[in-house]
């Protein structure tokens, strides 16, 4: 059983930390830090990921993105921009030194066009970071075997992509996600590609433990409203999953069966 399912409250547990919200959010692509802050608040999210390459770790409090993250949110520094395991490890260490957080969202993307995660370097980096005491949340391809490896390496979650990052294409990897969810012993967070609230609901309905949404909120005409919509959809999808859907049938079946009078 997964950590997240063991809790009777339905909380999400990642690396021993307990969260009520199952929507994780990002900080990129917003038109301003002020709008980002409002959207983060509206999302009800408790975890926010921040690209270390965008944060000035040498300069405290001068309108940096970190100054606009609402207090109380758990910071999840990410290694976006890293092209191999060495860079990701180096960046994670810098992030820990600066923020004190031992959580890291591991991103290794050597191809700047697709930003597709590099499975080999991601696994290498994960092994090293786990050994250094990090709680590692790896962004990865929706590959069941890779997710097994990452879990065995000691990662706190797996974060398979729903579609190409930033693409808003929805849950294109649904078939793979279903397999990953079925086998995973750590929370599965569907990361990347979810474009509209119903995509988040779909991911949650198939059993993902959480979703991470950034672009869809940031580039919406009204990011604050979209953040709220994703929060509701994530919750609705989770409830739908817990409620257990009915069987899918080939033909119609009346909701009042012919033998109903016998009851």
């Amino acid at each position, binding site marked *: 059983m997964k950590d997240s399912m063991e809790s009777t409250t339905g909380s999400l547990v990642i690396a021993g930390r307990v969260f009520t919200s199952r929507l994780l959010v990002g900080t*990129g*692509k*917003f*038109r*301003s*830090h002020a709008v980002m802050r409002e959207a983060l608040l509206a999302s009800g999210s408790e975890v926010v990921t921040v690209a*270390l*390459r*965008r*944060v*000035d770790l*040498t300069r405290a409090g001068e309108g940096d993105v970190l100054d606009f993250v609402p207090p109380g949110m758990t910071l999840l520094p990410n290694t976006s*921009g890293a*092209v191999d395991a060495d*860079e990701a490890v*180096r*960046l994670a260490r*810098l992030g820990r030194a600066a923020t004190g957080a031992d959580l890291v969202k591991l991103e290794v993307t*050597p*191809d*700047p*066009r697709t930003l597709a995660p590099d499975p080999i370097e991601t696994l290498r980096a994960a092994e090293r970071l786990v050994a250094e005491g990090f709680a590692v949340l790896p962004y990865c391809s929706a590959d069941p075997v890779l997710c097994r490896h990452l879990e065995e390496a000691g990662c706190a979650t797996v974060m398979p992509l729903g579609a190409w990052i*930033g693409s808003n294409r929805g849950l294109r990897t649904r078939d793979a996600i279903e397999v990953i969810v079925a086998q995973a012993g750590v929370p599965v967070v569907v990361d990347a590609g979810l474009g509209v609230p119903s995509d988040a609901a779909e991911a949650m309905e198939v059993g993902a433990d959480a979703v991470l949404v950034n*672009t869809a909120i*940031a*580039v919406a005409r009204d990011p604050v409203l979209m953040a709220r919509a994703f929060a509701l959809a994530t919750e609705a999808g989770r409830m739908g999953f817990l409620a257990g859907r009915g069987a899918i049938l080939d033909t119609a079946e009346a909701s009042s069966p012919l033998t109903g009078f016998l009851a």
Partner: protein
Amino acid sequence: MSAPRGRFATYLDDLPSAGSASDVAAADVELALARPSLDGLPALLSPAAAPYLEVMARQARELTLQRFGRAVRLFAPLYVSNACLSSCTYCGFSKGLDVTRRTLSVPEVVAEAQSLAVQGFRHLLLVSGEHRIEVSANYLVACIEALRELVPSISIETQTWSDDTYARLVDAGLEGAVHYQETYDRVRYAEVHTAGWKRDYDRRLASTERAAESGVRRLGIGALLGLSLDWRADVRAVAEHAVWLQRHYWRTEVTVSLPRIKQSASGFQPLVPVTDAEYVQAMAALRLVAPEVGIVLSTREPAALRDGLARIAVTTMSAGSSTEPGGYLQPGQAQEQFAVSDERSPAEVAAMLESAGYEPVWKDAFALR
């Protein structure tokens, strides 16, 4: 002796001619707009596409937002030297021009960088003329090593170097290298580059390939519009070059710049001026056929045009630039390369971007070493 022809040069030489821009019909433009591709670029650059400018701009904006989000990277050029051993008829640093020359010491470079960092910059472009004694590989390594803690993203726009030197610079912390071909027209190139290292067209053109193979991860290319008779051919060559580089060096980011010739100490006058409308057309067309290429716009262009282009195609801008070595702390002590048009401060440019709904991105990298 000239350098061997590089791989892209061979590709470019084999590329079929675009034909005459005046022969393009509206139907060709509509076809090119329906499914933008490099093959359709000559049509998008032609006079026949002028009535479609708003449509092109709208499509370009859509693509830019999709690929790059509501964010524009900001950087500053840091001129380290105007010493030059090359003679280029259009450049204010050209060898033989009677101008005040200056090469900054490494501590002076650091002081200039600090003054830029205070304003927010974490991405600097070290610029120099071509003088391999005053601006040597050792000098650049020393500059990069002295700056890398302060400035996580350092690029150079200097002379071209050997593979070994690019690798050394990368090892010191170099992230990007910019090599403008100026014009891809071999005949015109020879006319304006009359002497020096830069006279070798093939060495210049292959240098971006050498840099990529040596581990430089941000590659900048471009053409100086107004230098050749046919700016459309140069824009097409730049687009072909950018896409070719992306195809061959999948780990690199490619940025493109299309500066227009400005007034300089050289007194050079453009053969054919590129109008503002044509300039916007070129930028939009470039975005349509190369959606993943970063487009850089300098302070050469006036404020209103820059503000407009940031909403259409541009993804990286300089701001508050000085084009003279030492010009941020001690202006007026050396010759500038060209006069800037947009004289707003970095804070003012950032405020403009914010009011247009974009996040000004000062820092978008981490120290590589």
